[in-house]
Structures are given as structure tokens and as C-alpha cells.
């Protein structure tokens, strides 16, 4: 009954989701489960995630987690996606345990994005 349901990070990300949107012609990760839908798109150059954007349908924690993910991974090597950790995001956003499953949907989307980038890289240019 008592606690604030959202910490300041969640409130801030929810209010200002600066990374909401799409990267046109970017690599795309998508996953849906439990009614949630998340889409990530990325512009990758020289193996680096130059731009990351998200779209999501979900509760504030899910939206904030997407924003947090984009902020955190923009500018880093695409290979870092493999080390994506839900635990840290859950901690920083103080996501209640009963919402763990929702953050795992983000993890699946990140994995899907990693795969998409891999596929683009592997596909020999024609």
C-alpha cells in the first residue's frame, strides 16, 4: 500500500523518453509476450551502435527500461548487447520482482536486435 510505485529514474524516463521512435532503415529487434510489445531499432556503423531507438507497449517500468537500455548502449560496440543484464536495469529502475517477466521481454528483444545486426553483418554485400 505504501511505497511509491516508481522511482525517480522511471518517472524521468517515462516523462522524457528521448529515445522513443525509430531508426529509419536500421536493424530491428522485436518481441512480444504477455501482451507486451517491444521494438528496438539501431543504426550500426563499424560495429558500433550509433543510434538506438525503441517503441513499446507496456507499463511504465517497461517503457523506462527501454529508454534506459537505449541510453546505456548507444555508442557502444554491438557485441556488448550479448552482455545485456536485466538485473542491473531492474535494480536501477527498482522494478518490483513480480514484473521480472516483463523485463525479460526486453531481454528477448535485445537478443533479437543482436541477431538482426549479426545477420546484416554476416550477409555479404551484393
Amino acid at each position, binding site marked *: 500500500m505504501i511505497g511509491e510505485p516508481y522511482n525517480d529514474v522511471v518517472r524521468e524516463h517515462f516523462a522524457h523518453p528521448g529515445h522513443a521512435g525509430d531508426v529509419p532503415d536500421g536493424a*530491428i529487434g522485436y518481441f512480444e509476450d504477455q501482451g507486451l510489445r517491444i521494438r528496438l531499432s539501431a543504426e550500426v556503423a563499424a560495429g558500433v551502435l550509433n543510434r538506438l531507438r525503441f*517503441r513499446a*507497449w507496456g507499463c511504465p517500468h517497461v517503457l523506462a527500461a527501454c529508454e534506459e537500455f537505449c541510453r546505456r548502449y548507444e555508442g557502444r560496440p554491438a557485441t556488448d548487447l550479448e552482455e545485456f543484464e536485466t538485473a542491473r536495469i531492474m535494480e536501477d529502475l527498482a522494478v518490483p520482482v513480480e514484473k521480472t517477466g516483463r523485463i525479460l521481454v526486453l531481454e528477448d528483444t535485445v537478443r533479437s536486435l543482436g541477431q538482426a545486426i549479426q545477420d546484416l553483418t554476416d550477409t555479404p554485400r551484393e
Partner: protein
Amino acid sequence: MISPAPIYLDYAATTPLDSRVADRLRDVQSSAYFNPASNHIAGRQSARVVAEAATSLGALINVDPASIIWTSGATESNNLAILGAAKQRAHCGRHLVTMRTEHKAVVDVFRALEKTGFEVTWLSPGPEGQLDPETFEAALRDDTQLVSIMKINNETGVVQDIEAIGRICRARNILFHVDAAQAVGKVPVDVSALQVDMMSMTAHKFYGPKGIGALCVANGTALEPQMFGGGQQKRMRPGTLPVDLIAGLGTAATVAAQCIDDDLCKLVMLKDRLWSGIRGIDGVRLNGPEQGGYPGILNVSVEDIEGESLLLALEPLCVATGSACNSQSQEPSYVLRALGLSDQEAQSAIRFSFGRQTTVEDIDFAISAYRSAVSKLRSLAPGIAA
């Protein structure tokens, strides 16, 4: 983070005190705080205060003041009425009838009775929430002893035809209880005309104090008490009477008797304005009746919006998502599900509820907050098949 001042549109959950009620509380707290059961001049002074309050409430709902049992609220009134009557009258039959869309404080009581050998028929409403009297009558059996139907639904504002149901019950000698927590003090209620045997109410829904309610029980209706100890209230409900809260309820009743018409008139205007302001949004649907619902409640769902995010996006607007009294539960409202909404529709539902202190500005704020919240969340969402 400093939050902006809340805009309170959750009057169906609880209302602020009317200033006349607040004055009365103060007055009684300082001059007649005694135990009305005490056998001395101070106690008798408090007893007179209690008697006056009973007269005021009796006048509001047209019952004999002697038929009023003071309780801590409608939850307790419902428990006392339903458990007390069902057990006392078990010899009249073990079949009970209620609706799926009742408040938890009725639903859970019937569930408890089901576990002790009573059989409950759970009636479904029509798509706008109303109970059809014929459907109702068809559910009655020879061993039906008790019926409980609410007057105004707390989530949708739908109003049941208590008079018709009461007539049917009376003709068959079935005891009829009405949970009028959302009705007393807010719409005219005439218990005697309605052929109701027991009616529950709670002061904090009509600008009275919290922690005080009443059950009125028609003459001759026997109930098994649900609490024991002391001779207060003819043994039906022991405990030191909270004379100040009772006086506050009495004042709230007197004020309601004066204000109901004006209140309703204003609420109709506000509800119209609010609905006009948002009905045009793509995918919005009204939960509850188009016509004839209680004008202080507007419940709407919207397609493809996540409810929790909607609620946060509406801040500092204070509105409800489920039943106000149960919003700790995260399940989509069982009331809306019973109206035929999908889980997804039900979870996006917002109940706006307003009252005596609500202004046109509040409503206009709500309209623009709702419009922009919906469009913001839609802009964030991926397409269904991205």
C-alpha cells in the same frame, strides 16, 4: 521530485468533508465527546446528539430513526446485513441471489457464505450493466431467502431498478438488501417506498466522515449479530458509539437533503462536458449506460493503451482504474469483465468520478490530460505487427 498539486477526480472512492460537517465534528468533539451509553448528564447529552443524527439520516432516506444501526462503514454494514440475515434465516432456505458486479464488500461476503453451505446465484448484468428484472425473477427459487443488489455501481455508475426488484422480493417474502454506499446522500433514496428490508451506507461517500456508516433494518427483520460485547445498539453492534462521527454523518445527511438536486444538476453538466471532450478519441468506449447512469461517474476504456502507463501519464490527475477500494489488486476489473469487456479493454479503463467541489476547470484539465496521455502512449507503441 516535487509533484504538482493533485486534481482529485476520485469522488467515488471517497469525498472531502463538507465544511459544515467539519464544523460539526469539531463542535461535538469539544462539547459532547462523552459516551452516549453513560448514565450521567454528559452521556445523555451525547445520546441526544446521536438521536438527532438518526433523525437527520432517517429524514434523508425516509426511515424510522429507530431502524438505524451505526457501523464503521458500508463494508461492515454489508457484512452484518448479509451474514447476519443469511445465518439467522437459514431455516428459510439456503439459496441466495446477488450480481457478479457487486462491490467486493458484497461479493466476498457471499463467497464466505458459499463455503458454509449456502448456494449463491451470481447474476450477470446486461451489456450496459443493468440487471433485467425478468432475469432476476427467473433466478428465484422456493428456497431463496436473501437477495442483495446494489443501487449504484461504484465502477460504472449504472443504477439498478431497486423498486422493481424490491416488489418481486416482497411478493415472495424474500429478504432484500441493498448496498447503497454510492447512492445515499448522492441521489434521492426513499427506503420505505422502495420495499427494501436492509440498506447499507457509508458517510465518507457523501462528504461525511470516514469510519462511520449505517445499516437500516426494517422493523421485524431479525439479524444474527456479527460482533459481541455490551448492550449498545440493542446488542446488534456493540462498541462505544463514536458520537462525533455519527453527528458528522447526520450533518452530511442534512446537507445532502438540501444539496442533492443542485449537486446532481451540476454533475450532469460536468459528465456531459467530460464525455463530449473525450468521446471523439479513436477507440474510446463508455463503460456503463449511455443514459440514466449516475452522473458523478464516467468510466471509459480505450483501445490498445496500457492502463498503468495511462494512469501515470494522467498525473497529477487522480482517477481510479478498478474499484477504488481494491486498486491494490492488479487484475482487470471483474465488474468490467462482467459487462463483456476483454481483459485488454478492462485494464485500460479509467473511472473519472466527481462531486460537490469539482470545477469545470478540473474537468477541462481532465479532458486535455486524457487526450494527450492517449496520444503520447500511442506514439510510443510499435504497430501490432512491427
